[in-house]
């Protein structure tokens, strides 16, 4: 009976220990980067933030200024994007789940998946060519449409997955009572899948709330509070960008503060989603 020599055994043991350490180091490194980034945001952001900052509009250098209109603008754009994108995404998801087994369904699914991978700046360019160019102006509408286009594939995929998870027995029970299919889908299946679909919507909103590129040439940005949808609209992300690339230290500080506000919003959404999904499983 042959046994491997102690030296061979030790080198294998060493390799094993080294690799375990290395992989743990990778995980530790990745987490520490997150901590460093979030910590920095908190540190730099907290020093510049105050109530005035949250209400004011941007002012010339030296006069302070704030991100009040940017916060409102982001919320308006998010709302607009959701109003357009969520129903369309859910409807497409329902279609794919209920009727999407043929070649047409497969094509639609493939195309939707393609849309997921399109860089958001390309979507910005597209919306520019079909809305901004003809209208000859930047508008909130355009920004909302751009955001909706990013949200739709995310929501479609989650909705389809969640609906498919609903057991057929539930459907059959309703059908056997003589309900038409549309009633079954809307009244029985959708409510059953509602938590999952809501999660998908929240994920889409979280994802889109951080988008800058598609807004750069659709909603463009503004220094004022706006009320009209056919005018440009400020947003947190674009404002952060503008402050960050400016040459003024004062504005850099404002950029950090604005980032703090944005990150708070995003973290809240993400943690909420996490709580929801943990409860489900």
């Amino acid at each position, binding site marked *: 009976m042959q046994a491997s020599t102690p030296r061979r055994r030790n080198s294998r043991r060493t390799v094993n220990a080294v690799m375990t350490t290395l992989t743990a180091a990778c995980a530790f490194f990745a987490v520490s980067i997150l901590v460093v980034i979030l910590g920095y945001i908190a540190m730099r952001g907290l020093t510049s933030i105050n109530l005035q900052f949250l209400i004011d509009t941007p002012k010339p250098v030296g006069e302070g200024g704030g991100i009040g209109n940017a916060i409102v603008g982001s919320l308006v754009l998010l709302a607009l994007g959701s109003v357009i994108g969520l129903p369309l995404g859910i409807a497409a998801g329902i279609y794919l789940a209920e009727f999407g087994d043929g070649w047409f369904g497969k094509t639609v699914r493939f195309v939707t998946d393609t849309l997921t991978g399109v860089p958001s700046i390309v979507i910005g360019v597209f919306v520019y060519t079909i809305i901004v160019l003809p209208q000859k102006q930047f508008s909130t509408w355009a920004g909302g449409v751009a955001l909706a286009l990013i949200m739709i594939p995310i929501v479609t995929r989650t909705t389809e997955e969640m609906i498919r998870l609903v057991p057929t027995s539930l459907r059959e029970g309703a059908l056997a009572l003589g309900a038409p299919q*549309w009633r079954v889908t809307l009244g029985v299946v959708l409510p059953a899948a509602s938590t999952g679909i809501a999660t998908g919507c929240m994920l889409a909103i979280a994802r889109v709330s951080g988008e800058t590129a598609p807004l750069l040439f659709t909603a463009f940005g503004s220094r004022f509070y706006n009320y009209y949808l056919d005018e440009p609209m400020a947003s947190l992300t674009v404002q952060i960008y503008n402050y960050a690339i400016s040459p003024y230290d004062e504005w850099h500080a404002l950029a950090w503060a604005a980032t703090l506000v944005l990150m708070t919003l995003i973290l809240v959404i993400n943690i909420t989603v996490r709580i929801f999904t943990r409860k489900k499983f």
Partner: protein
Amino acid sequence: MNPQPNTPTPAAEYGALARRRSFRRSLSATGSTGDAVFRVLLLSVALLILLIVSSMVVAMAHNSMPSIREFGFSFLWGSNWDPVKGEFGALPFIYGTIVSSLIALVIAVPLSLGVAIFLVEQAPARLARPIAFLVELLAAIPSVVYGLWGIFVLAPVMREWVEPPLQRSLGFLPLFQGTITGIGLFTGGVILAIMITPIISAVVRDVLAAVPVSQREAALALGATKWETTRVVLANAASGIAGAIILGLGRAIGETMAVTMVIGNRPQISASLFEPSYTIASVIANEFTEATGDLYLSALVEIGLILFLVTFIVNGIAKLLVWSVTRGTSGTARAT
């Protein structure tokens, strides 16, 4: 042979398919107007999506026509980008995109694999869940925030602590020569690496978890160490891992804001990694709103079209590879 766990047996699948088909048949048979309206409404949404994506291609192609007519294929290898003179060539941006993405992959792939292996194979479940959550949180940070952090934190670090030693030790290579400012191709690559790590590691985790336990047991029973067993799992998941990497590449290619803020935005092709550069996405972000003249604008749209096509192909390949390993085991709602 034997069905994998989690996928329905062929009989159950056929039954489900038959039931769905009979729904549709019964749809026309019921004559319920509600059903017909329902179906039409949903169909039109599906068609709308098809319409949107195809019009994306059409609209961008249409708007790049002036540039295509002017430069033809030489656009792709033209290295001169001079809006003033009206000369436009995409090569500097293609170069910048490729090199920054490659740097990102070189850094991110080992890091992501390490994280994924640690989370799936090594860490106890209680530790793995919070760490997995934290790593996924990296994906939730917006691009512009990465850019901000990149300008004020990463770039100085690169300038003071990372690039000088590299130049001192490896400066004989043209890669590491040149002026060190902290803003340039290398920093762009590093920030991309941080941004694509959570995506690659998330997909690799799914792929590793899909490898059956029996493979691990087979290796262990032969006297393999933990690491040797992990190598067997990696061999099983190979094509899925390749897919994850390509997916990360697709993301890196399309990243805009963070890269724009740290790469320097100079349309030049330089051998040095420390020099400023320009990517496809960055030039669009920077110059689009200031583009004067139809030719300028259409050149930018043409660049956008190139970006669209490249990411389309890359993502398509990635999805094929990943699907071949996970095949049905749900990856849940990943907002990729």
